[in-house]
């Protein structure tokens, strides 16, 4: 490992309308190391990575490649210097197939110099590239037919196939399952040995410990410091990130649950869970664990009237209900905070106040005439109560950070006064500070007597927050645990279908 940085950024400043995204940030990466960049959402990690990849230009500061100043005007410039990466936004062309995406703009030619694509070679090489990841994908499939995890893997494969000297990975594991994550880490390890310099952006502390060498922390666009990962504890890292120590990540005040809120009996949803038996009581948080594709999201979509129910019963407060539409379920006091807030939760170009009342307008204005001032004051209450960071309720939500966007979605569901709340991945993609706040809010909601169903891929979160836990594997509920009976190993093995979980009776 040479100690000379291959890529270095000095005094980087980037101004966006209304925010200083980066304010004098320094960063460097050496060949053969994994340099982790961490920070809360909105800290400027992605902005910095985009500057390194030539996607956006810095306002001030300089970038040095092998000690010489360079200018990166476009991703192509970066690629010519051997800098490649995966940013958070989806970069594949949905209707092109896997091979076409991997070789986009550098297709192998049948005859040198002529514009005819050698399809056979393109597919062959794509298959090789993917099998290095242990992926068996039909390369003729348009990528829009792949699930998000596979798409992400294709995207990463694509970048790796250009053999970059500097590889920038912006939250590459956000959509991946554990198995794929470990494959990715093997590849990263391999590349590191080959002398590739890797910039790795994440806010999952466990994983950066596994693969990182050094770590640079950003906070509010400012450079906090660079340390060797081995020299610091998790608590110290969190404190560097949020500027204060977080006393409790999973605050729960446990108490005896109340009456039965929602019950499923032999509940089967098309393409989703089969024969599910499930109960949640008022005042209780019930965790739903399982791999992506195990049927968790389909289960709650069935409850919420989005996907049709094949058989079985749904009882709310002991009364039988046939879910037909979200509208009907909202009126019955059910709310669903979806896993994909940008797609199903928010009108990104609308301001905070209209988003807040999107599901509760009729409750506030039964006569049908809306008073915008009242809507604004309702929104202001939530901004204060949930500590949403926004200059005003008139701000379009797309300008808010991920954690604050998630709080707006929470405000929307709280404002429906739903008694049964379903949270699908409530803390995905939000930073540590906001995560603790979301948890505290969920605990408060449970204390106030609401019934909460929480889906999460984050096992510590499931274990820390739930009163009871159901585990799903291949569309079936394969286990149920009370708080205290479960641990990470038991649940993980059930999720993977290798454990023999004692399925205690639900009722």
């Amino acid at each position, binding site marked *: 490992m040479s100690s000379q940085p291959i890529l270095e950024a000095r005094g980087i400043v980037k101004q966006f*309308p209304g925010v200083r995204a980066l304010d004098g940030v320094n960063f460097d990466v050496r060949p053969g190391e994994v340099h982790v960049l961490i920070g809360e959402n909105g800290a400027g990690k992605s902005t910095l990575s985009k500057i390194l990849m030539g996607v956006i230009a810095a306002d001030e500061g300089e970038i040095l490649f092998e000690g010489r100043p360079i200018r990166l005007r476009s991703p192509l410039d970066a690629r010519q210097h051997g800098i490649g990466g995966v940013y958070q936004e989806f970069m594949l062309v949905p209707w092109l197939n896997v091979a076409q995406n991997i070789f986009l703009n550098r297709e192998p030619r049948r005859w040198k110099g002529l514009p005819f694509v050698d399809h056979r070679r393109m597919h062959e090489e794509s298959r090789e590239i993917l099998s290095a990841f242990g992926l068996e994908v039909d390369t003729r499939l348009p990528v829009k037919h792949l699930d998000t995890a596979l798409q992400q893997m294709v995207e990463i494969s694509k970048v790796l196939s250009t053999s970059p000297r500097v590889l920038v990975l912006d939250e590459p594991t956000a959509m991946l399952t554990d198995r794929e994550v470990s494959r990715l880490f093997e590849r990263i390890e391999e590349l590191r040995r080959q002398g590739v310099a890797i910039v790795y952006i994440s806010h999952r502390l466990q994983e950066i410990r596994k693969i990182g060498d050094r770590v640079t922390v950003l906070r509010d666009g400012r450079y906090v410091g660079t340390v060797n990962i081995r020299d610091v504890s998790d608590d110290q890292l969190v404190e560097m990130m949020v500027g204060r120590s977080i006393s409790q990540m999973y605050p729960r005040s446990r108490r005896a649950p109340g009456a039965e809120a929602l019950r499923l009996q032999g509940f089967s949803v098309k393409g989703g869970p089969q024969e599910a038996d499930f109960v949640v009581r008022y005042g209780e948080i019930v965790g739903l664990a399982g791999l992506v594709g195990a049927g968790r999201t389909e289960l709650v979509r069935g409850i*919420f009237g*989005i996907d049709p129910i094949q058989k079985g019963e749904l009882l709310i407060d002991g009364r039988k209900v046939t879910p037909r*539409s*979200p*509208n009907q*379920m*909202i*009126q019955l006091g059910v709310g*669903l905070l*979806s896993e994909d807030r940008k*797609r*199903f*939760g*928010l*009108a*990104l*170009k*609308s301001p905070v106040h*209209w988003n807040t009342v*999107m*599901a509760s*307008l*009729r409750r506030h*204005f039964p006569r*049908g*005439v*809306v008073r*915008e001032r009242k809507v604004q004051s309702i929104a202001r209450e939530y901004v204060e109560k949930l500590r949403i960071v926004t*200059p*005003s309720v*008139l*701000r*379009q939500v797309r*300008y808010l950070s991920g954690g604050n966007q998630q709080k707006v979605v929470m405000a*929307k569901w709280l404002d*429906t006064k739903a008694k049964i709340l379903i949270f699908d991945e409530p803390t995905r993609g939000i930073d540590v500070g906001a995560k603790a706040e979301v948890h505290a809010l969920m605990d408060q909601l449970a204390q106030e007597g609401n019934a909460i169903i929480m889906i999460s891929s984050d096992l510590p979160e499931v274990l820390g927050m739930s009163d009871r836990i159901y585990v799903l594997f291949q569309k079936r509920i394969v286990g149920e645990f009370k708080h205290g009976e479960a641990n990470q190993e038991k649940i993980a093995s059930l999720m993977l279908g290798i454990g023999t979980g004692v399925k205690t009776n639900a009722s």
Partner: protein
Amino acid sequence: MNRNVRALIAPIFRLTFVAALCIALTIMNENFLTWTNIINVLRQATLLVIVGLGLTAVILTAGIDLSVGGVLALVGCTTAQLLKSGLPIPVAVLIGLAVGTAVGFLNGVMVGVIKLPPFVATYGAKWIAEGLALLLMQGQIIFGFPSSYRWVGVGYVGPIPVPIILTAILVLAFDFFLTKTVVGRDIYALGSNRDAAYYSGVSVCKITILVYTLSGLTAGIAGLLMTARLDAAELGMGEPFLMQGIASVVMGGTSLLGGEGRVTGTVIGAIILTLVVNGLNLMGVPALWHQIVLGAVILTAVFIDLQMKKWAN
């Protein structure tokens, strides 16, 4: 509040654009700034504004209605035939409006229930509406309606022409409906993010049917006004309104992607288009050149509008 001011930048700019256009026309031609001419421009703009009202509602949901011209012609021709056959005016008018509303409703069902892309559904409806009009007219032009019918097109209340009053009432009603009612907010929510609106309990299907039905209704009203004004009905009468209608909506700041815009903007857009044509006529520019100038004005207005919005954010 700072942000409230910012939200006003684009609308203020649009008004400035109109004012600048007026000043330019006044300088270039002494006949422009006369009461008769101003009233004339506004009266000419009324049809476009009315078509634009329903169209704005549709475009706010990220949809499109390509059938407005066809519906306008069909309603005009239907009512004309009914009047000719001696039916009482209220009956003929109601049947005419019912036809327009029905086409709009069917558009809504095709888009909202059968889930055809709006472009395809309403394009098909355009051909069917025009075809029906053709069947009705058999290639003829109908003219000579009772003067009490013509009053809505050419009459005056005091110094103000009836169509301008009628249009003003419709604009106020639409603006109230879209911005101040729960259903109106649902339309915006649906246009901003259809999935999120559905998850939030908005009846996506009903709202979709509603906006297309409204568009059929307003196109129908425009059809009636036009026959009353021209004292004639013919097949091609709806032709200019589709593209000019969409242009008015877009120039008025309504996003084709949905969720953003307002009917007051559409009114301005329609007035700009009408002003340009009026100015060209006053200056004696041959009609052959009108389309080129119109196209350039539309592109410039939309471009500047987008820049203004970017700047305001």
